[in-house]
C-alpha cells in the first residue's frame, strides 16, 4: 500500500511548491470597492507647444504605438474579417510610410474573436493584458460589443466599433466610438425610400434573429406601422441554409416591398437565390450587407436590381476613389464596407492623436472634436460617440452598385 500512496502525496507536495513560491510574489490584485474613479488627462505638448506622443501610456513605447484589433478572422463571418484585415494593413502601411503618428511607428495587433461573443471577450482580454494596446478597433457585431462593454469601461480602453445596435455608444460610457450609422437611421431610411419609390401598403421583413437583424427589423416595423403600412416579419438564424419556409410565408402575405435586415452577406446570397427560385419578383430594399463585396463575389446574379441603404458605397467621393484604386492594386479585389469603417476609424484616431498626444483621456476628448473626410463621407462625433451619419440609397447593377440618391435627405432632420 505504501507504494501506491506515495505518488499521491508526492503529487500534492509538488503542486504545493508553485503555490508557495508564487504566494509571496504580490500578484494578488486588490478587490474593487464600490465607487473607484479614474483621473483625467491633458494634451501632451512640448515646450514649443507642439503636440508630441510621450511614452508611458499603455501601448506607447519609444518607437511604437500599438493599436489592437478584435476581428472575426475565423468562424461564421471570417470572410468579412479578412477584408477588415486587408483594409487595416493597407491603412497602417500608408500611415507608417508617411512617418507614422507623431513620429511613432504604428503597429496593429490582431486578435481573432472567432465570430463569437466569448471569443470577442478573450480577444479583448488578450489585447489589454497580453498586447497592452493604446486603443482598440473592435468588432462589427452588436452582441460582441455588448459582451465587451463592461471590460472596455473598466479598462478605460478607447474602442472604435462598427456594430450598429443603437444603444451601444450610449452604454459605452464615453469609451466607445461608432463609425457606422446606427440601425435606427438605416431602418428608417429603408422605409422612407420604399414609401417614396413604391408607395407600399404591405411590407415584408426578412431578418437575422441576432441583435443586429432583429434590432433593424424592429425599426423598420415601427417606421412602417407609423406610416400606416401593414407589416409581416420572418426571421432566420445566422448561417441558415434553407429560407424557403420564411420566403413562402412572406410571399403569401402579398407584400408590395420586400425588406431585409441581414447580418452576414453569406446568408443574403443564399436567400436571394431562393427568392429567385421561388419566382418572387417583389422589389427588395434592405440593409448594407446586400452590397458587400462578399455578396457580389458569392452571387451577384441573384441580387440584380436590389436596393440597399448603405453607409459605404464604392467610388463615392474622392477619398473613396483613391482608396479603392489602391486597394484594388494591392489586393486585386474591390474593398467593401467590411474594411471601410476600420480604415476610417484608423485615420480618425490619427487625427485625434495629432491633437491630443498619447494620453488616453486627452485622446478620448479629442475624438469628440476632430473632423475627417473618410471613405464613408464626412466624419465627426456627436456627444454620444456616433461618428458617422452618412447614408446612401444604392442599387445593384452588374458586379457592383450604383448610387440612387442621398438617403439622409429622406429622413426627418435630427
Amino acid at each position, binding site marked *: 500500500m505504501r*507504494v501506491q*500512496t506515495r505518488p499521491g502525496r508526492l503529487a500534492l507536495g509538488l503542486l504545493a511548491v508553485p*503555490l508557495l513560491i508564487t*504566494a509571496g510574489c504580490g500578484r494578488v490584485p486588490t478587490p474593487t470597492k464600490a465607487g473607484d474613479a479614474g483621473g483625467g488627462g491633458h494634451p501632451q505638448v512640448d515646450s514649443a507647444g507642439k503636440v508630441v506622443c510621450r511614452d508611458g501610456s499603455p501601448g506607447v513605447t519609444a518607437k511604437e504605438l500599438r493599436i489592437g484589433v478584435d476581428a472575426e478572422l475565423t468562424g461564421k463571418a471570417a470572410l468579412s474579417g479578412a477584408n477588415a484585415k486587408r483594409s487595416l494593413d493597407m491603412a497602417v502601411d500608408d500611415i507608417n510610410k508617411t512617418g507614422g503618428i507623431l513620429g511613432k511607428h504604428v503597429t496593429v495587433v490582431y486578435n481573432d474573436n472567432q465570430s463569437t461573443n466569448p471569443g470577442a471577450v478573450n480577444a479583448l482580454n*488578450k489585447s*489589454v493584458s*497580453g498586447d497592452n494596446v493604446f486603443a482598440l478597433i473592435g468588432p462589427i457585431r452588436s452582441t460582441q460589443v*455588448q459582451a465587451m462593454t463592461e471590460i472596455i469601461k473598466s479598462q478605460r480602453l478607447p474602442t472604435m466599433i462598427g456594430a450598429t445596435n443603437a444603444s451601444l455608444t450610449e452604454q459605452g460610457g464615453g469609451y466607445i466610438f461608432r463609425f457606422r450609422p446606427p440601425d435606427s437611421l438605416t431602418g428608417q431610411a429603408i422605409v422612407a425610400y420604399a414609401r417614396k419609390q413604391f408607395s407600399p401598403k404591405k411590407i415584408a421583413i426578412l431578418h437575422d434573429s441576432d441583435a443586429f437583424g432583429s434590432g433593424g427589423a424592429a425599426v423598420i416595423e415601427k417606421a412602417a406601422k407609423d406610416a400606416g403600412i401593414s407589416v409581416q416579419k420572418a426571421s432566420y438564424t445566422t448561417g441558415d441554409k434553407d429560407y424557403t419556409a420564411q420566403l413562402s410565408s412572406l410571399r403569401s402575405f402579398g407584400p408590395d416591398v420586400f425588406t431585409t435586415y441581414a447580418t452576414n452577406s453569406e446568408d443574403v446570397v443564399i436567400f436571394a437565390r431562393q427568392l429567385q427560385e421561388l419566382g418572387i419578383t417583389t422589389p427588395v430594399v434592405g440593409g448594407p450587407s446586400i452590397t458587400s463585396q462578399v455578396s457580389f463575389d458569392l452571387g451577384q446574379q441573384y441580387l440584380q436590381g436590389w436596393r440597399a441603404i448603405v453607409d459605404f458605397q464604392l467610388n463615392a467621393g474622392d477619398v473613396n476613389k483613391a482608396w479603392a484604386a489602391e486597394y484594388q492594386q494591392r489586393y486585386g479585389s474591390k474593398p467593401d464596407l467590411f474594411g471601410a469603417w476600420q480604415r476610417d476609424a484608423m485615420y480618425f484616431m490619427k487625427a485625434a492623436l495629432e491633437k491630443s498626444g498619447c494620453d488616453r483621456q486627452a485622446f478620448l476628448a479629442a475624438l469628440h472634436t476632430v473632423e475627417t473626410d473618410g471613405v464613408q463621407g464626412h466624419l465627426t462625433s456627436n456627444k454620444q460617440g456616433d461618428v458617422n451619419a452618412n447614408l446612401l440609397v444604392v442599387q445593384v447593377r452588374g458586379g457592383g452598385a450604383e448610387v440612387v440618391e442621398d438617403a439622409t435627405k429622406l429622413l426627418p432632420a435630427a
Partner: protein
Amino acid sequence: MSVSSRLLERPHTLAALLVLLASLPFLVNPFYLGVVVLGVIYALAVLGLYFVMGLAGQLSLAQGAFFGVGAYTAAILSTRFDWPFPATMGATVAAGVLVGVALGYTTLRLTGHYLALATIGFAVIANIVFLHWKPVTNGADGIAGVKPPVVGGFILDQNFFYYYVALAFLAVGALVGWRLKRSRIGLAFLAIREDQLAASTTGINVLNVKVLAFTLSTVYGAVAGGLYAHGLTHYISPDNFAFELSVTMLVMLLLGGQATVPGAIVGAMLVTALPEVLRFLDRYYLAVYGVAVVLLVVFLPQGLWGWLESAVARRPRRLEGR
C-alpha cells in the same frame, strides 16, 4: 483490476488536481486568467454530463441549453429583481431540478439515438425561447449588467477573485461526483449503462435512476450557467448558448475521459484553453485544433484521463514483476 490500476482514482489525485487548479491564477498571465475562469465554469457543466453520460450511459446533447437556462435564471433575477448572488445561485439549482425532472420523465423512456434526438430538440427549442421571448429574455440583445458577488463590501468582479468563487462550486461538485460514483446510486448508474434490462432485474428502478442522473446533469449545467452570467462579462445573449455549446461540452467530456471526475475537469479546461493557446497560429488554428481533436479521439478513445490511468496501471505491474 489491480489496486495499483486505480491509483488515479484515489482521493489524493482529485485533491492534487484541485490544488493545481487553485494555484493556476498565480501561474498564468491576466489574459489567460479569463480563459481559466471560463474553463472552470465549463468544467462544472461538463461534470453534469459525466453523471448522465459517463456513468449512466445516456447520450445528452442539451448541456449547453441547461447552461443557458441557469444563466438566464440568474441574469433575470439579478438584473430585474435585484436578487443577490447566493439567492440567484439557489434559483439556478431549482431551475435545474425543474428542467431535469420535467424533461427526464418525458424523454428518458427513450434510449440511444431517440434520446439524443430529444435532447437536441430541447437544446434548439431552448435557444429559440431565449431569442424570441423578448419580454423575459430581452431577445437577441441579451441581458447586460448581471451583478457580481459581493463579500463583506468587496465586489468580486475581477477574474482573480471570481475564479475562486467558481472553483469553490467546482470543488463541491467534484466531491459530490466523486463520492456518488462509489455509492449505491453510482453503482446503479453504472449498472444501467452496462445493461438496462439486467439492472432492472436486480431491483433498480431504471427510469427513476435515469431521471436522477439526468437531473444531476441539468443542475450542474444550470449552476455553471449562473456562474457564467455573474462573472466574466456580466452579459449573456442567446448566441452564447447555441447548440454548438452542447457539442463542445460533449467533446470536452470525451477528450478528458467520460467516466471520471478528473477527466471531465481536465477535458473542459483543455478544450477551453486550446484555441487560446493556439492563437499564435492565427487563422490556421482551427485546422490544428481539429487535427488534435481527431488524433486524441483516435489514439486515446478513453480520453486523456483514461490514458493516464492505464499508463499508471502499467508501471507498477512491472515493479511487481521484479
